[in-house]
């Protein structure tokens, strides 16, 4: 055998065979799920603003489909729970945002350093005092820098004003992801090295959020402005340890309770004034079932068995659009990899029959759009698809809008 490609394939097979010793897929999956889920949660939160226009569109679509013509459309508040901390909308002139068709504004023209990042002064007290609606907190995390571009191995945070002023407020490791911005308290909370950290933007002081022996991840805000945090054993399993509710800035939680009796691998979201646990995989009659769990702040749990028409295969939970409903995408057969053949259903939390809705192909992918094209970001997720968001991307940027408590 003298074919180079064949020799390389054989070598890879040889190396792969040798890699089977001591491999524990469950442990590896736990670690990767946990970290990827944390990153996605943050991104889903910070990109929520960009998805609102489309959500409003679908909210209206769903409303009509359900036969509520003539009644008000829930529109831009598709989730009654407030699980996505939607800010007062930044003014159009202040924060460029995509149109419903997904057009991304031109990048800003500001001086940049060799790594492509904005050259920005450190934030000062006078600037912090001006922060209000229209301001954003942006995170830059490195993509794959082109040849010859200095490699930057950290994550950088910038404060951006409505008139496009920009100030650097802090740096963290390359793995860091911001979770929550408390502008009134000048605090940024970000996740790094399996812990949440509170950075005081005024003093620069950094300290772990809550008990440093646990990893806390921000879930969202309750309607009364209190924050809901999930806690996990640091460096341990993906399994949830407990739930804590904090008044912003308080050092002790208002209340906390251990992991409720629900399935282990679930996604959490705030649902009105309580929580909802939805299995994060294997949804649907043909797989793990159709149960979800409402978890109340007194620790009580109510299981809801949702109804799907027969014949559907694997389902995935997508969003909450109308009160008392969930939206799932389901494949038409039992082959979970056939993602292109799916239908979208609105399920009723009271167990009533599901309603199919016509959603444009790749609609859900458009949630990936960025709301603002920040200076220094050469490419970001623009469209559905695989290749568009690959390489070369010098920086990924995400943003948290100003949101008063």
């Amino acid at each position, binding site marked *: 055998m*003298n*074919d*180079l*490609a064949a*020799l*390389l394939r054989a*070598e*890879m*097979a*040889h*190396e*792969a*065979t*040798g*890699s*089977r010793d001591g*491999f524990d*897929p469950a442990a*590896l*999956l736990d*670690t*990767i799920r946990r*970290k*990827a889920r*944390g*990153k*996605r949660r943050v*991104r*889903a939160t910070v990109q929520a603003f960009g998805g609102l226009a489309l959500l409003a569109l679908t909210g209206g679509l769903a409303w009509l489909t359900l036969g509520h013509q003539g009644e008000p459309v829930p529109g831009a508040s598709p989730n009654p729970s407030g699980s996505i901390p939607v800010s007062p909308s930044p003014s159009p002139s202040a924060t460029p945002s995509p149109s419903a068709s997904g057009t991304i504004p031109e990048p800003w023209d500001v001086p940049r350093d060799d790594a492509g990042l904005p050259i920005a002064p450190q934030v000062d007290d006078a600037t912090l005092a001006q922060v209000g609606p229209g301001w954003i907190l942006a995170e830059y995390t490195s993509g*794959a*820098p*082109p*040849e010859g*571009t200095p*490699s930057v*191995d950290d994550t950088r945070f910038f404060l951006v004003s409505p008139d496009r002023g920009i100030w650097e407020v802090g740096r963290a490791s390359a793995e860091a992801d911001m979770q929550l911005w408390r502008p009134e308290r000048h605090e940024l909370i970000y996740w790094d090295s399996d812990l949440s950290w509170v950075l005081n933007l005024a003093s620069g002081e950094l300290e772990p959020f809550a008990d440093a022996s646990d990893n806390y991840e921000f879930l969202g805000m309750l309607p009364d402005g209190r924050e809901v945090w999930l806690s996990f054993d640091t460096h341990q399993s993906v399994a949830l340890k407990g739930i804590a509710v904090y008044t912003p800035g308080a050092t002790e939680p208002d209340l906390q309770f251990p992991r409720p009796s629900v399935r282990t691998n679930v996604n959490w979201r705030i649902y009105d004034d309580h929580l909802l646990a939805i299995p994060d*995989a*294997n949804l649907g009659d043909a797989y793990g079932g159709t149960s979800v769990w409402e978890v109340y702040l007194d620790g009580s749990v109510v299981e809801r068995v949702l109804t799907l028409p027969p014949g559907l295969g*694997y389902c*995935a939970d997508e969003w909450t659009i109308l009160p008392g409903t969930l939206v799932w995408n389901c494949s038409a057969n039992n082959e*979970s*990899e056939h*993602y*292109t053949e*799916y239908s979208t259903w609105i399920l009723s939390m009271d167990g009533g029959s599901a309603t199919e809705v016509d959603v444009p192909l*790749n609609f*859900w*992918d458009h949630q*990936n759009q960025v709301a603002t094209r920040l200076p220094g970001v050469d490419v970001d*997720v623009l469209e*559905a*698809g*695989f*290749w*568009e*968001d*690959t*390489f*070369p*991307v010098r920086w990924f940027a995400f943003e948290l809008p100003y949101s008063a408590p």
Partner: protein
Amino acid sequence: MAQWEPLLEEVVTARHHDLLGYAQMLTRDRQEAEDLVQTALIETFGKPRSFPNAIVAETYVRKVIASRFIDGCRKASAERRALRKVGATEADPAAGPHLRAEHSTDVGAALAQLSPRERACIMLRYLDHLSTHEVAQALGLSDGAVKRYVSDAVARLNGLLGTDADAERDEWSDVTTGGAP
């Protein structure tokens, strides 16, 4: 769609050994390979992306592995330069990951003689069937640099392994559907 966790599970349970094998061919070090695979999986599945199936997802992960491997080599190179600048020494200043391995096969030994960039280019080209342009995009290199790395690497591997690969003859056409950015 957001159905990423079953896909992750499928990639990890069914394809992890191959990914690790792929990474080990690059790093020549088991621990580094494990770290690289984990990093690539988190990066791949930690951002919202659409993969129609596990094969496409695995392909993406492999590109991230190669890219991050090169990033790591850039960083190591910068650190070595910094050490030299301050007059410090390190255990093996010439070593990329490639000189640390014990080579159990001829192919492994031959790969170890390539520079990290040459190795990454060869693997993306001959294992993943990427075109020169696609390799350049994946690794953040210029097309010209990739051509040079592939050509040099092929010549060396032909000499060491007795193969008759031809870098120009073996060029693949772009397979991207929408054109890379």
